[in-house]
């Protein structure tokens, strides 16, 4: 069970990044914070390098898309502090149509392919990334497949009516 003092973490983050921490949620399955895009890299660096909080392990990273929100594109990062067995989820959202985030490859080499996958599927740019190319899809693919407007099947198919099954 997590032993890290979440209250202390919350107040430390508020103290260091004050208005850049947009919200925090202690009741979710893990402690979740939403931060501004500008401070995203600094917050992650702080969580990694702070000797007490020590979130030294990058669990996963993925893109999010909420087309109806004023800030449709988001990035979700999960970190893990193994000695204390605590996990944290950091989310950041942006309203740009061509979202650009600072890369995490300077903190973890593991972020390389995770960010390439996010670029491949959502079209997010990562400044400072050493090798930002498509990774799973073919290079000639047009568009960003995991964005909500991208159709799962050929939209011109007439032989199939799946109104019942569509979202």
């Amino acid at each position, binding site marked *: 069970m997590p032993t890290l003092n979440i209250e202390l973490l919350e107040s430390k983050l508020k103290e260091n990044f004050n208005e850049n921490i947009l919200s925090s949620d202690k009741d*979710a*399955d893990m402690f979740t914070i939403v931060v501004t895009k500008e401070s995203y890299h600094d917050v992650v660096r702080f969580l990694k390098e702070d000797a007490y909080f020590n979130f030294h392990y990058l*669990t996963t990273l*993925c893109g999010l898309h909420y087309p109806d929100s004023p800030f449709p594109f988001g990035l*979700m990062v*999960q970190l893990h502090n193994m000695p204390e*067995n605590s996990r944290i989820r950091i989310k950041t959202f942006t309203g740009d149509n061509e979202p650009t985030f600072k890369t995490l490859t300077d903190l973890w080499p593991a972020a390389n392919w995770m960010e390439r996958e996010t670029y491949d599927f959502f079209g997010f740019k990562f400044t400072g990334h050493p090798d930002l190319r498509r*990774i799973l899809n073919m290079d000639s693919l047009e568009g960003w497949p995991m964005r909500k407007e991208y159709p*799962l099947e050929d939209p011109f198919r007439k032989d199939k009516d799946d109104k019942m099954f569509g*979202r």
Partner: protein
Amino acid sequence: MMKNQQVTNPTNTALQEKDYTILNLGPTHPATHGIFQNVMKMDGELIVSAEPTIGYIHRAFEKLAERRPFYQITTITDRMNYCSSPINNMGWHMTVEKLAGIEIPKRVQYLRVIIMELARISDHIICNSVIGVDSGAMTGFLYIFQWREFIYEIYEELCGARLTTNIGRIGGLERDFNEKAWEKIHYFLKEFPAGLKEFENLLVRNRIFMDRTIKCGPISAERAMAYSFSGPNLRAAGVDYDVRVMNPYSSYEEFNFTIPIGTNGDTYDRFMVRQREMWESLSIIQQAIDKVNALEDKTSFHGNVPEFFLPPKEEVYNSMEALIWHFKIVMGETTIPKGEVYHCVEGGNGELGFYLVSDGGRTPYRLHFRRPCYIYYQAYPEMVKGSMLSDAILTMSSMNVIAGELDS
């Protein structure tokens, strides 16, 4: 004369004109066990750099999952790490159960542990015997594979399928273990240790095998953590991280087992960690059977979750309520809470995570799979740099990179 003018620094000509060979290892190569391409720059027999290309069997699982009701996603998870599909299936069921707050009876949790540990053994059998094959020892592979076949026969008794199992349902298992399944599990527990011992005798202290695998494709604990390794590969480097202990699920906290770790993170350590884990898995299965037998509850194989668990067929044919529930579940019309949840299980090769965002609709709003293979395979160029080509083959098979999981 002309040639001399082109060279700006004549003392370095040897370096500049050195011939490197570009070697395409893959995409389909008998020694890569799956569709992996590596463009390797070779200096004679030594690897100067390797550049992996992946995605040859990408099937857009995350996009597909956004259009499928929750129970249909189980079949997607089968096709990720197809050497241990049941662990993926269980991981997915538990993710949905965590989101919906479903209570699972103890008996089902223990039965799930039995299935997951059988799957772990079959996964490790494949990986370890293939390390033997790639180092030239075919015999162990041929002998131990009958046990992997036997585990698949147990799956057949439990769910009817062998490779892509689709085992269990959200809320429990689709049916109880039958007599035949118990018989086979007991037979397996009785006879497999001898087979595993025979396999170990062939390889563990084999001089040729040790020479071949020790110091082959090593990675330090520090680099392994930086590359977000998990599972046996991380443990071989000396970090005792196991999701079963760190974040227990399905009552793993009640079991007694040790986590084997290595020291050098090389091929031999990875082999030995998997080997030890198979023995631990056997003991976990035995403990789970004892726990099942000690329970008063002898029959339950699913929780009380009419919203997710299909009613029995006799009821569907004969009662209106059951028919309605059946219809609602199949059409995905059951209510699921809004929210987001991350659940991870210890898969065959590491922390297999499911990040699920639900908007209360019939399908996930967003589902992200944390696939351990995908994350640690990016360390491969660093691990094989400067080693021989044949060591690169061994390193890849000992990392247990599964194409289905890598490419999702």
